């Protein structure tokens, strides 16, 4: 093997990520599925890494869900996106960072389409002016929020309180990384490592002490798919996809799964309950499932945040086995207590999958 040649090829798969001054936009669905992830991301980047992240309160949905379910035409989705870009420019920023993979896919698709069809960009520019009296200025740089954590993964490792290793034995935790399809499968050059070797999450795992699992269905979709999910009768497609992934990763005994998409962690987490109810099968140890975490939640654990402040009690699959392995202290009595000790209520126990 000629190392220089390999390095040259690998260089083509790299993505430049700006150092500082980002315009940050949140995700509609992530805020309800994983309510603490974005707060933790901003706390880590602003207060622990000292980066400038700006949020504009007038930011709205990117329209991705409506677009992917054919409820609105592409021009409408593009005008919504053009408005977000205008807000970024008005706020004095040029590096656009979004929290959602669906949004990231919509943004890259929009920018690439405008590049191919400038007349469409001109049309959207006019739509934006007519509807909002705003000027479209495209971002100089577009990143997904996981790119930022990836970029600073070694700084995070240097400040880590916990590592992705089994505290008692020092064994590196075996981690499945699952990357949202819209991160790099549509426009490979926009993601770290492209579509074939996406490295954005694997880089975090390695930097924080874990071991990446390479299993046969590693690049298979989680099965979310808006169309599959929205129609109840179609959900079997989504569920079967997830089931196939779990069957494939099972022999490698993953300690947990890390993801960077809104849909993937949600479905990989919740479908484990449905698989258990329908087939009686669980994939973790001792009747538990395999914990599924967002990369912000993992970064938060590594930094030593209280697991309940990270919102880990809102997961379907219990995270306690992972916390025990990493040696992270937690108070079981506080699991279902919200901010200021407010009682959140205790979920009903599923029949076939342990949750405590």
């Amino acid at each position, binding site marked *: 093997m000629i190392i220089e040649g390999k390095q040259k090829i690998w260089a083509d798969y790299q993505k430049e990520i700006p150092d500082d001054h980002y315009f940050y936009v949140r995700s509609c669905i992530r805020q309800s599925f994983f309510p603490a992830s974005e707060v933790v991301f901003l706390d880590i980047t602003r207060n622990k890494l000292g980066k400038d992240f700006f949020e504009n309160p007038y930011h709205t949905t990117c329209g991705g869900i409506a677009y992917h379910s054919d409820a609105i035409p592409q021009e409408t989705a593009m005008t919504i996106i053009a408005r977000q870009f205008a807000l970024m420019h008005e706020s004095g920023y040029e590096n656009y960072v979004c929290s959602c993979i669906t949004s990231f896919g919509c943004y890259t698709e929009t920018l690439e389409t405008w590049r191919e069809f400038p007349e469409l960009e001109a049309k959207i520019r006019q739509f934006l002016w007519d509807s909002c009296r705003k000027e479209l200025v495209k971002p100089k740089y577009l990143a997904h929020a996981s790119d930022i954590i990836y970029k600073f993964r070694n700084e995070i490792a240097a400040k880590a309180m916990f590592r992705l290793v089994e505290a008692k034995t020092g064994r590196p935790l075996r981690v499945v990384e699952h990357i949202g399809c819209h991160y790099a499968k549509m426009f490979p050059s926009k993601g770290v490592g492209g579509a074939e070797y996406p490295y954005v999450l694997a880089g975090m795992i390695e930097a924080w002490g874990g071991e990446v699992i390479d299993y*046969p*269905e590693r690049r298979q979709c989680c099965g979310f798919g808006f169309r599959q999910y929205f129609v*109840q*009768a*179609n*959900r*079997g497609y989504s*569920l*079967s996809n997830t*089931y*196939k992934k779990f*069957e*494939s990763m099972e*022999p490698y005994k993953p300690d947990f799964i890390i993801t960077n998409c809104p849909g993937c962690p949600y479905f990989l987490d919740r479908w484990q309950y*449905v*698989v258990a*109810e*329908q*087939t009686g099968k669980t994939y973790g140890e001792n009747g538990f499932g395999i914990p599924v975490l967002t990369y912000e939640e993992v970064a938060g654990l590594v930094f030593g945040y209280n697991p309940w402040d990270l919102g880990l009690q809102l997961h379907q699959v219990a995270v306690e086995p992972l916390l025990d392995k990493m040696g992270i202290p937690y108070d079981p009595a506080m699991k279902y207590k919200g901010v200021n000790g407010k009682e959140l209520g205790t979920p009903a126990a599923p029949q076939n999958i342990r949750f405590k």
Partner: protein
Amino acid sequence: MNFGFSISPSSHIMMDDVSRKRFDALKKTEPDIAICMSCGSCTATCTAGANAEVSLRRMILMLQRGKDDEALAMASRCLLCGKCYLVCPRGINTRHVLLSISKCLGHDEDI
């Protein structure tokens, strides 16, 4: 509990547990199967495929994954009309491949 939807069996294949003995033997007779790009033109044009489950593209994929019995069952439904040969963009002699599948897979002792 009735969720209103159900799970399909997993189509996941563990390649470590699969024997590719027959596929490798077939490849010796039909080296061209290695250049199939799974375009599906053969399937789209298949005479038998209009009425039965026949797809050369799927047969090749099944063989690569060690699903020999399924591939053989499918090959037995082929009419040997040769229409797929006319459309294959890779110029694979598909009709000959289909005959070889039956020959190589049908008779273990010949391998």
